[in-house]
């Protein structure tokens, strides 16, 4: 079924009105040599059949619904209040497109305005855009913005080795052929002191992450000194941050950061095997014209009533074409809506509470696991909800054992950090009940024997 409403009689009537004999005639401009190929695709299915098939292949997966998920590393299993899917599944939101006609798009526009407002509140920044594709592309776009803020004259970008490995990879793809040099992350021991020493007059920005990929929270006082050092050489400080951690910790905006970005998935968006997520992006008011991406602004209508429109579109590709700040043409509107509903539902108290539960449960788990023979917690305090544990056996073997016991194990750091052999990055959110932490400890104790 192609969801097409015409009857054969109607098709004939329409062809007559057009003045052709057959539908095939409408395709006369298509080269005859390759017209009407026979596509080899499976036979069509009914709803009954497709859903049966999809349920079956979905059942091949181990999901965080049946298993206790200890995996984080940039995508997090947090509680999503029921109000979030209830709103996001309203088709007035999901079957609309980019709000080019503001008079009949006030729902999307005001929701994004609310999202921008709450991202500013969360990060401590002055302006936020309507979102990028994800955390990695938001980092890459932050670097592009810093490069253009320096009018393309500075050629170095410093990346912390503790920035998510995939963010660093995406940044490198985005800057291929740009003549920019990305460095700093070549040695895992390059800490903030080492990065600070690498700052020079040719550096356009320094990118750090808190909590780091390994879960550690950077001290606000240290971030402030880093921002001062960056500004002293005319470079920008870009901070990637976990939005849930901002329920508890001092935001980068209060530490002198110039651009604050991050993966916004944790704000009300399910894991979905890696996407779609959203990248949040915030900067100072003074830099707003250098920022890429959609922006919603407040205005009034012809009768003086408050309304919202896409604004500063003169930065964008549909007007500036090759001179645009970026090629980004859309945002992750529906994911940003989920984030807005999530932040509204949790509010000031709820977000603080979620962050506290994660913090305390993660520290409790680390403390218990650290006392087991053969296991050692390698993270330095304070961390947020993730910590590094060295194990008495390879992590892939440990994770197989955990799977048998109903756990999706942590991230195997030997894949990305060769110096952390046999180390796992465990994540404990509010979705891991205390009893499950205790059971995990028992399972690990058995494994270590």
């Amino acid at each position, binding site marked *: 079924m192609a969801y097409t409403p015409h009857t054969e009689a109607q098709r004939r009537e329409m062809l007559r009105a057009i003045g052709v004999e057959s539908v095939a005639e409408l395709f006369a401009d298509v080269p005859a040599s390759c017209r009407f190929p026979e596509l080899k695709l499976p036979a069509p299915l009914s709803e009954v059949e497709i859903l049966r098939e999809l349920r079956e292949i979905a059942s091949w997966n181990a999901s965080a619904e049946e298993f206790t998920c200890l995996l984080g590393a940039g995508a997090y299993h947090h509680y999503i209040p029921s109000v979030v899917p209830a709103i996001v599944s309203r088709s007035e939101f999901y079957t609309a497109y980019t709000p080019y006609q503001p008079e009949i798009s006030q729902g*999307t526009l005001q929701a994004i305005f609310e999202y921008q407002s709450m991202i500013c509140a969360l990060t401590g920044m002055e302006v936020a855009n309507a979102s990028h594709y994800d955390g990695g592309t938001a980092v890459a776009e932050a670097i592009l913005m810093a490069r253009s803020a320096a009018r393309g004259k500075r050629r170095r970008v410093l990346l912390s080795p503790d920035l998510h490995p*995939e963010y660093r990879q995406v940044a490198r793809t985005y800057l291929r052929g740009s003549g920019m040099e990305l460095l700093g992350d070549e040695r895992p021991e390059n800490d903030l002191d080492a990065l600070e020493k690498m700052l020079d007059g040719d550096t356009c920005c320094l990118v750090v992450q808190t909590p780091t990929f390994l879960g550690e929270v950077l001290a606000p006082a240290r971030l402030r000194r880093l921002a001062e050092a960056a500004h002293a050489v005319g470079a920008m400080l870009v901070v990637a941050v976990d939005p849930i951690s901002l329920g508890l910790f001092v935001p980068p905006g209060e530490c002198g950061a110039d651009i604050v970005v991050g993966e916004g998935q944790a704000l009300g968006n399910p894991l979905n095997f*890696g996407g779609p997520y959203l990248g949040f992006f915030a900067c100072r008011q003074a830099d707003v014209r250098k920022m890429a991406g959609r922006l919603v602004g407040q205005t009034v209508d012809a009768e003086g009533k408050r309304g919202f429109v896409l604004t500063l579109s003169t930065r964008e590709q549909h007007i500036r074409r090759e001179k645009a700040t970026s090629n980004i043409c859309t945002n992750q509107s529906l994911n940003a809506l989920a984030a807005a509903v999530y932040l509204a539902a949790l509010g000031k108290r709820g977000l603080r509470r979620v962050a506290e539960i994660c913090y305390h449960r993660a520290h409790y788990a680390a403390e218990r696991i650290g006392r087991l023979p053969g296991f050692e917690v390698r993270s330095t305090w304070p961390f947020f909800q993730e910590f590094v544990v060295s194990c008495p056996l390879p992590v892939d073997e440990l994770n197989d054992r955990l799977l048998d016991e109903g756990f999706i194990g942590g991230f195997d750091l030997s894949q990305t950090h060769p110096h952390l052999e046999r180390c796992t990055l465990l994540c404990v959110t509010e979705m891991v009940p205390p009893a499950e932490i205790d059971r995990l400890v028992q399972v690990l104790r058995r494994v270590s024997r």
Partner: protein
Amino acid sequence: MSEPLLCELSVPGRCGCTLPEVGVPESPLPEGFVRQDLPLPEVSEVDVVRHFVRLSQLNYGVDIGFYPLGSCTMKYNPKVNEVAASLPGFVQTHPYQPVHTVQGNLRLMWELQEFLKEIGGFAAVSLQPAAGAQGEFTGIQMIRAYHEERGERRDIILIPDSAHGTNPASSAMSGFQVVEVKSDARGNVDLEDLRAHCNERLAGLMLTNPNTLGLFDEHLLEIVEAVHGCGGLLYGDGANMNALLGIVRPGEVGFDVFHYNLHKTFSTPHGGGGPGSGPVGCSAALAPYLPGPVVERLRSDECPGEVRGHTHTEECFFYDWTMPERSIGRVKTFYGHFAVMVRAYTYIRMLGAAGLRQVAEDAVLNANYLQRKVGEVFRLSHNRRCMHEFVAIGRVEGSDVRALDIAKRLIDYGFHPPTNYFPLIVPEALMIEPTETESKETLDAFAEALRRIAEEARTQPELLREAPHRAPVRRLDEVKAARELVLRCTLPVAR
């Protein structure tokens, strides 16, 4: 009454959620790390629901009515897609789970890669790009890598003047010099102008075909020959693929690299401006450069279902990640918009080959029928058979109303306006794409509304200039928005 903002609804002390107790002994919080104020709104659950439901009622979507936004393919989004994408076995999987625990996801992605290869006529597909614009950027980076590996310094990308603005932006972002190619009187690429630019500096041509005028280029094979003849590559912008399903495979005609828009052609919802999904397909010569990882299928003695202790299938395969050998790298975190892929997969499985061809045929039938009817009232940019969309000129003889006024007046008739002022080469453009999911009755009603609006333009032009009259708000002051820049609402500072 306009809907208040959350920061106006906020009452200190309210909360819209319930959360568990910490439940474990608390650890000390580090000194100097904890934030003093978190100025998020404080509202109840009922407040949240009513606020956002009321906002939703201010929106127009495909589920409300006809949305003929040119080049956006606003077709109906089947509800079964939403059911499929909400199956917990898909939704609650983490991107870093070991491959043997996500064989279902990998199998679906592998199948979708195969479907897209077959539909587009390509040797390989990567599902990673997040949207059409990112697909373009990916393709251009692949073209760069291809030439670089051959030791060639080609620095120009040609782009027709009818192209979408993302094409030049994507090329410039990748460090190429953008040169515009003219269109000829029939709306094709001007072959002479194109040939004049085909030389050893040409990296590639970005071509949208059918183009944004809704026209299939009458010299497509000559264009391919000219570009390939000088060593350049052909990039296909698949924004308008809806017209081509089962009609022609871009890879077979000679496109080297091409992006699909799952949110246009394959019926996944546009979400108010995202998430989309822009997979890239390419020829065998470009396959090594695709962004990764992509999914590969290996023969296996063990069936995927057996990993969970029970057999599900007779065919036994194991699905794994693989990185194309000379990949341009990752273009985004993780693997792409998986939940969007589930919807597109569902759509393709529901339609099959015959259904997909029916889509293209009815999309083109609808556009030609509507072009015929609209052409009785408004001048058309080109008097030619169109594909899935066409461009009308939004002027009425004997009246000074503009395309914008006509667009806004359509809102009062209950329709979403067409794309206006694009493509840039047509003054006062109204770019109309009906899609295949609209009935003849809807098309007739839309054409009738345009006829009445043209009449109003002559008799009561202020009705158009002040339109819309029946929308939640009247025309908005965009100049004020850009000049005064209010981009957020802040709560009063905590006392």
